[in-house]
């Protein structure tokens, strides 16, 4: 009955706590006093008044107590036996195969043994963090034993564990083992109980040949030797000779046989020459012999960015002229250009009868070597007012075919005007003419010698070659004030697939369109440019006469060379990643940029990206934004080379393609080392007076019999909702009301 009235059992050791806030209690007290004073009003006998007020006081007291939220709290404590914590290494190194079975196979046996040693066993596994329970698989990418012990201490703060069992191969990647390896007296870890270490894995007869590291320096220069150095390690391969292969794009580049030293280590260096610019995926590989513990560490890729040290330009001029001089001056002054010039200083028309050969400094024009052998070593070939027939003679057809092939395969050719150029140079109908951005007649078309100022076309206003200033209005102004040209070659028309950037202001071509003066074209993998004037030098010296320097000339030709070189910033579709090499798990931002024919940002274009990770293809799509850009995020779940290709389309039209490559390192720190570290584990156990058990040993778990923990109980009884209080208030309020009515009041 009493228990019901009080709302529960109230022990004698408890404490009364008022749970309501102070202001609520004050409000309740003031309200009760006001009610009590109000109840005293009215005329009635003094005795009845006194009795009624006393009863009201008791009722209101009960109400105030209820509002105060009284709580009866009783606390109690009891001691339980200490627990045994088992930490299991869940990292990938535990999956290393030994005698055909993974190292982790022995974990269950040790765990069963530990459970037999203590009543209350809690199991955890760890990689870089501590996690409750046994590992489902052994694939965690790190091992931080000290972090796990710290996590354990925090989890059982204030409790002395009966014991801590660690099951591991000792290949700790955290600070603890690093201290052990580097310091004479390493700091010992904090362990919340006696430590017992069980080592899994043994060194005996283990084989593992691996590529530990590859160093390429990150980038190299085209046609300049660079080195790729690799560290090879072979467990079980001491004093043995193994082949090491350098691969590029999956194919063998070269192979060396290296002898590993007594500790099974060797360094191998490959000297490589890249013939092209771009990103190239190399890999250093050692064979996977039978019984190799970790085949995954036998290959390591690395992507090398090959850049041009200098652009090789061949300038061939039919006669020295101011135009030739200024172009040479520009090219020679550009430190990124390696220029080879050949100027025809004398023709068959020139009289030299009064001078002997030995008086002359002329050399023979090595046209055959240049255009049959060395052509492909140049990045850009400039024919500046050069007529081929007098020099190439019967080899003309072949050498001009070579030039066309050179362009189609990725080279670049420029033809600059003059009285030996275009149809005046008898290029009409030749193979080279097929690669030019203008069509030429077979018959020589007379040039137009009248001075004129070229007009910038709509395409020219946006094209990178003719973009002298970033601001379009300023760019138009630059071209509008440029010096007049002293005549032009006359071509039939621009080819349909070319872009005409400058035109003659009044002359028209064979179709009635403005006569092209500057045109560019993409031919196969290469590019060509036709400038039909021979006085672009006036954009230098005449601009200087006006006090404007020679920036217009320099920018024009610099733009032209960069565009011809397919500088990535000048291609219509570009694809890039911020870096060449990534680690597994990192996200790669693939940035695709698209421009229209006039090089304006192309929005709404569809970019289809294929990422090919050694046969595993993933496809991504996105549409370019107003800046002509789309960013795709590519996860890197697998190691190896990732080749990225993009095709950008706008409507039904293909805008262009681009590609790049990046590498995701196979280097996995968890399998860098495979031999268990017994010395570390012995030290670890010894440093905290624990016990070490070697592979296969199941010694007793060290247990602290006095360890235990106090379990505290807390019981709360809410008195404010006890029936007693409601009855109290109701009883005395009711009696007060009866007394009041009998006294004649309401």
């Amino acid at each position: 009955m009493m228990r019901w009235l009080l709302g529960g059992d109230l022990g004698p050791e408890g404490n009364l706590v008022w749970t309501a806030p102070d202001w609520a209690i004050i409000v309740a007290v003031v309200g009760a006093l006001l009610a009590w004073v109000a109840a005293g009003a009215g005329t009635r006998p003094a005795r009845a008044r006194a009795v009624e007020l006393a009863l009201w006081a008791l009722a209101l007291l009960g109400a105030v107590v209820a509002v105060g939220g009284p709580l009866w709290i009783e606390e109690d404590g009891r001691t339980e036996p200490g627990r045994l914590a088992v930490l299991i290494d869940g990292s990938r190194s535990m999956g290393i195969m030994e005698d055909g079975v993974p190292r982790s196979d022995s974990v269950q046996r040790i765990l069963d043994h530990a459970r037999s040693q203590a009543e209350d066993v809690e199991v955890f596994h760890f990689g870089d963090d501590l996690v409750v329970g046994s590992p489902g698989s052994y694939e965690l990418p790190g091992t931080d034993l000290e972090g796990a012990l710290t996590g354990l201490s925090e989890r059982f703060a204030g409790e002395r564990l009966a014991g801590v069992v660690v099951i591991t191969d000792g290949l700790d990647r955290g600070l603890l083992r690093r201290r052990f390896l580097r310091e004479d007296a390493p700091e010992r870890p904090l362990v919340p109980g006696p430590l017992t270490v069980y080592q899994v894995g043994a060194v005996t007869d283990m084989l593992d040949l691996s590529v530990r590291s590859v160093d390429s320096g990150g980038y190299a220069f085209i046609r300049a030797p660079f080195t790729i150095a690799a560290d090879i390690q072979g467990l079980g391969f001491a004093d043995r000779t193994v082949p090491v292969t350098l691969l590029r794009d999956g194919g063998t580049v070269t192979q060396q046989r290296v002898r590993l030293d007594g500790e099974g280590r060797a360094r191998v260096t490959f000297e490589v020459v890249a013939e092209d610019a771009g990103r190239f995926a190399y890999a250093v590989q050692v064979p996977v012999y039978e019984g190799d513990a970790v085949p995954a560490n036998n290959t390591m890729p690395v992507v090398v960015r090959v850049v041009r040290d200098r652009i090789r330009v061949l300038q061939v001029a039919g006669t020295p002229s101011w135009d030739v001089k200024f172009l040479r001056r520009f090219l020679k002054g550009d430190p990124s250009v390696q220029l080879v010039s050949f100027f025809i200083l004398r023709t068959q028309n020139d009289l030299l009868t009064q001078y002997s050969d030995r008086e002359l400094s002329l050399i023979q024009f090595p046209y055959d070597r240049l255009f049959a052998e060395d052509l492909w070593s140049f990045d850009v070939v400039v024919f500046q007012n050069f007529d081929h027939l007098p020099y190439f003679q019967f080899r003309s057809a072949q050498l001009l075919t070579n030039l066309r092939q050179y362009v189609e395969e990725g080279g670049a050719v420029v033809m600059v005007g003059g009285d030996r150029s275009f149809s005046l140079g008898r290029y009409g109908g030749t193979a080279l003419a097929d690669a030019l951005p203008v069509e030429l007649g077979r018959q020589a078309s007379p040039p137009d010698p009248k001075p004129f100022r070229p007009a910038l076309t709509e395409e020219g206003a946006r094209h990178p070659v003719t973009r002298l200033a970033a601001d379009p209005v300023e760019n138009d102004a630059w071209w509008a004030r440029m010096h007049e040209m002293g005549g032009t070659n006359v071509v039939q028309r621009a080819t349909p697939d070319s872009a005409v950037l400058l035109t003659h202001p009044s002359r028209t071509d064979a179709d009635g369109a403005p006569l092209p003066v500057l045109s560019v074209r993409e031919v196969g993998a290469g590019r060509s440019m036709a400038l039909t004037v021979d006085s672009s030098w006036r954009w230098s010296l005449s601009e200087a006469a006006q006090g404007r320097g020679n920036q217009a000339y320099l920018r024009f030709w610099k733009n032209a060379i960069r565009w011809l070189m397919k500088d990535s910033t000048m291609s219509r579709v570009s694809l890039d990643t911020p870096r060449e090499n990534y680690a597994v798990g990192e996200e790669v931002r693939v940035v695709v940029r698209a421009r229209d024919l006039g090089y304006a940002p192309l929005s709404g274009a569809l970019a289809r990206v294929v990422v090919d990770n050694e046969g595993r293809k993933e496809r991504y799509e996105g549409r370019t934004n107003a800046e002509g850009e789309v960013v795709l995020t590519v996860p890197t779940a697998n190691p190896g080379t990732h080749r990225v290709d993009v095709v950008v389309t706008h409507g039904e039209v293909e805008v262009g393609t681009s590609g790049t490559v990046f590498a995701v390192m196979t280097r996995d720190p968890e399998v860098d080392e495979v031999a268990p570290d017994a010395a570390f584990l012995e030290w670890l156990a010894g440093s905290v007076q624990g016990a070490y058990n070697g592979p296969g040993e199941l010694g007793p778990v060290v247990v602290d019999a006095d360890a235990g923990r106090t379990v505290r109980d807390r019981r709360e009884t809410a008195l404010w909702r006890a029936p007693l209080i409601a009855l109290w208030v109701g009883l005395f309020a009711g009696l007060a009301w009866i007394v009041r009515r009998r006294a004649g009041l309401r």
Partner: protein
Amino acid sequence: MRRRDLLAAAAAGTVLPRRALGFGESSRIDVCELDLGPGTLSRPNAWKRLLYEVKQTTSVEAEARSVRLPPDDPEMFAHPFAVLLGDGGFAGVSGTGLEQIERYLQYGGFLLIDDTSASEKGPFDAAVRRLLSRLYPTRPLGPLPPDHSLYRSFFLLKRPLGRVDRFPFLEGITVGNLTPVVYSRNDLSGALDRGDDGRPAFSCVPGGERQRREAIKLGMNLVLYSLTANYKKDQAHVRQLMKEGRLE
């Protein structure tokens, strides 16, 4: 190099009527004589002869003419080959004129200075040195080395002869690997100059016509040098000339 090799370089082919088809005047080489007033001279026939020889002997498209311009005339920028010749002290160049010559040389123009007095310490020489010290305050005028490109820009030359053979070297101001100003003190234009009758205006001493011939070759080399700069220092040329024993 044998004659037939040279002919191979200039091999027979279609002979085009080039001059008739040539572009406007701006594509042809001519000479701008700087007019700095009293003390400076004009010898248009010398340059006509030089340009004629250039046109006949080399592949260069030349217009056998000269214009005479004051240094503050922007028209000089249309003629990248300029000459300054004289025999007396000339007045200092005005600020605008000096600034324009400086820009002209900085952006690709070439200036040949010829002391027609051929004297050791004449007034022209002093005025030239004053002018050049204002144009290039940090770059002194100095002798050009015997292996300078202008001694091999077309002919292989060992000595810079003019009307006289007094100074065994040319002087110049070199910026980087280019020499935009060349100074001859042997009266080169005197060796080139002709009268209206077509005969040489002056005798060459002491070498006579043989010396004139060398002076013409030097003149042609200077034109070729202004067009090709250090082209003849390119490795391909040097190697080949050394291989053939024409260059030591």
